[in-house]
């Protein structure tokens, strides 16, 4: 086994994103409708004085049954890292998440890695469920940090921020 580089991980992540998107489309008319209604309440859409207006909120709003459900579905798709050591995208390309020493991850590492990776997804999901827009703001800020942290995998160690937080590496099976 060798460490997986940035680009193979990026492609695997793209597969996961596609799976999450398809899953979201399938659930859009049911669960998506629920999350969209929660977004109206949480973000005070259409209410006087709301700050949730402008082009980006509008585009998210008109696809609300997809856009506000997507974080939750993505969090579910990524949870395969916790339960099986690899998401569907990683399995497709022979990638596995291991402890930094190469051994299988323990539960603590799995959860830490998952939490660091899904701060945006779970943050938004919980914000919508709780009706707390402040949590959405915090989640967005955390998401920006996590996204930027993914670029750390471009380094020689091929470890993203969530790998460093959880002391993990992503390896690729030879052959």
């Amino acid at each position: 086994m060798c460490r997986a580089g940035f680009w193979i991980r990026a492609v695997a992540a793209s597969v996961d994103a596609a799976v999450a998107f398809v899953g979201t489309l399938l659930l859009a008319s049911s669960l998506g409708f629920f999350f969209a209604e929660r977004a109206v309440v949480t973000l005070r859409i259409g209410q006087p004085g709301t700050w949730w207006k402008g082009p980006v909120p509008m585009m998210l709003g008109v696809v609300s049954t997809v856009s506000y459900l997507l974080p939750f579905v993505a969090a579910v798709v990524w949870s395969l890292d916790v339960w099986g050591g690899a998401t569907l995208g990683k399995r497709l390309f022979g990638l596995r998440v291991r402890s930094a020493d190469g051994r299988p991850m323990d539960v603590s590492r799995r959860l830490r890695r998952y939490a660091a990776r899904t701060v945006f997804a779970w943050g938004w999901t919980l914000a919508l469920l709780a009706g707390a827009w402040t949590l959405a703001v915090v989640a967005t800020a955390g998401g920006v940090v996590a996204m930027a942290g993914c670029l750390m995998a471009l380094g020689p160690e091929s470890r993203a921020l969530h790998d460093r937080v959880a002391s993990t590496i992503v390896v690729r099976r030879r052959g």
Partner: protein
Amino acid sequence: MTPRARALVRSWIPIVCLVAVAPPAIAGEPVEVPVFCDDFELADACDWTAVPSCAAVCGVSGSCNVDYCDCPPGTPFGFLEGHWSGTWEDTIYEVSGAVEATFSIVCGQVVAAGVIDLSDLGLGSQSGTGIGTVAGDTLSFTFEAAMVGGGSGTLTLAGAAGGAQIGASGTGSGSGSVTAPLSFGPFTFSGSVTATTITGTFDFTNPGGGEGDVSLAKD
């Protein structure tokens, strides 16, 4: 007749036909109007861009025969013809832009070409087309724009007795869906039309979807 001779005849057709006295295009039976186009073959009866004479004679469009124009019944939606411009605004998200459309009557159908400014959404200006079929005082129309989506609706005139074209007005409604690549959700719209203004509202039916107004004035 050689192609050159035929082209020469074609070039004179508009002039000859413009001399003919055009009857008023009102609702009713097709009107035969002599245009003295003997010895002339027409490939496409309604291709009035190739043979503009009948468009001139009929006031709108017409199917041309060898020696007369079959003017279609006058449409009560003739007042839509022309260039319209205005704005759209999403009142929920406070996003707006320009919109313009040109309506014409072709072969008894209402044909539209429009442009909507979606620059605020980073999508630039998107062009689209529409076509409507007239049945009595009701116009059933569809519209689409490649990058945005499409929809359909109806427009029913009020107070357009006898197919009068001046001062006509009406109300309309319909539904549509913004499709890929934007994949915006479904929307409904309703509005009213007069000889000089088109006003309406739109509503994306998803929770949190936008809603707003559109207004156009005839140039």
